[in-house]
């Protein structure tokens, strides 16, 4: 049976993990490779590394980092942040990334999705969507949720799929950081209207939230950051719990 995936997300700045991560059993928590390897040992199904560096030097550091991740970690990983054109995608895939996540650049230039799919295959192309529910409508935002667009969640996700996206990573801005559960109604509608997998992001606070996002939100995967980084939920415990709740998961420990 296909397992529901649990995906920790790491924010990277100048080649180091950003959030105040605190792990007792690894030497350098600032090193994304060590942290990623620890999550892999704990049973994470995939990893996402988001580069939030703005500088040119920082970008080069990130590409070097992607190469080190590919050399050292034996589960799939997606990289995102700062991808503007096909050349950026080529650089990251050549460094060893399995998938790239495209967000603002896809909204500004939807052809980029088609180009990535045509050149590298749909399987590498994750389209990330940040959307906010306002007056009964889900509006897509640019630049980490700062700039509203005229794109709506469901039609944009459908268009991304038609252009060749391999997955949709949907972050609900209403739910992100609030820890009150995922946007299950919107997720279920999204998942049922698409023929590609949907990754849910934003709102994870408890283990029950993960059960609900799979059972009610019909998500194929769930992504979270701080609850894993701050040990609020340990991945082995989460997987055991989900298994008991009848959610198909991959147990490693």
């Amino acid at each position, binding site marked *: *049976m296909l397992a529901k995936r649990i995906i920790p997300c790491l924010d990277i700045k100048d080649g180091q993990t950003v959030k105040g991560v605190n792990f007792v059993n690894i030497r350098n928590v600032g090193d994304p490779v060590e942290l990623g390897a620890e999550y892999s040992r704990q049973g994470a199904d995939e990893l996402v590394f988001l580069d939030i560096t703005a500088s040119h030097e920082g970008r080069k550091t990130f590409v070097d980092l992607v190469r080190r991740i590919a050399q050292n970690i034996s589960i799939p990983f997606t990289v995102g942040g700062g991808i503007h054109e096909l050349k950026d995608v080529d650089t990251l895939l050549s460094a060893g990334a*399995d998938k790239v996540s495209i967000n603002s650049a896809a909204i500004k230039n939807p052809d980029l999705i088609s180009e990535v799919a045509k050149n590298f295959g749909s399987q590498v192309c994750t389209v990330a969507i940040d959307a906010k529910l306002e007056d009964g409508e889900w509006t897509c935002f640019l630049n980490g949720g700062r700039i509203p667009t005229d794109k709506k969640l469901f039609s944009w996700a459908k268009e991304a799929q038609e252009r060749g996206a391999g997955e949709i990573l949907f972050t609900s801005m209403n739910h992100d950081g609030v820890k009150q559960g995922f946007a299950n109604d919107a997720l279920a509608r999204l998942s049922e209207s698409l023929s590609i997998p949907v990754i849910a992001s934003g709102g994870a606070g408890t283990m029950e939230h993960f059960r609900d996002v799979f059972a009610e939100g019909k998500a*194929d995967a769930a992504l979270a950051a701080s609850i894993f980084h701050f040990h609020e939920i340990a991945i082995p415990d989460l997987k055991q719990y989900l298994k008991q709740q009848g959610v198909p998961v991959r147990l490693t420990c």
Partner: protein
Amino acid sequence: MKVVIVKYNAGNIFSVDYAMRRLGVEAEITGDLERIQSADKVIFPGVGEAETTMKYLKEHRLDEVIKGLKQPTLGICIGMQLMCKYSEEAVSGRVDCLGIFDEAVRLFIPNEQVNKVPHMGWNTIETVNHPLFKGLPEDPYFYYVHSYYATMGENTIATTDYIHPYSAVLHKDNFYATQFHPEKSGELGEIILKNFLDIC
């Protein structure tokens, strides 16, 4: 032991090289026919599309060389599919492949229960008793990304059920092939790769 990873116009072959290094093996990545023929073990990996990769293999005479190999050879993902009889992944709906295995490669058709294609993520395999699976736990999970699958046949030694059962692993003579990516499947993937390297 000389391990060669076949270089051709498919993506993601470096992941296999990295996995080999983690197992302490320095593999050579090459498209050179003689280097491939003289290897002790050959790995034929990749992510790609059947028709264009098949065309490339023919143009570079890699098709004959791979078919003629006598040493243990492992196909992964598109490598596996190219080792089958034919694939539906072609503009005309059919491209002849290497024909090492009699099984065919078909497109997944979604149904009411399972509506997501590609098959992406971790899935279990059911295996027969075979040295390639030595040391695997019960219900082992492996990582998959594919829209086409190899049908069940006499060379099937492991199956996965997604939409319907299909060949997860094929074996015939010196040829082995996995639809999943052992190089991306954590510790269990490393067991498969190590078992392959241990096969005489």
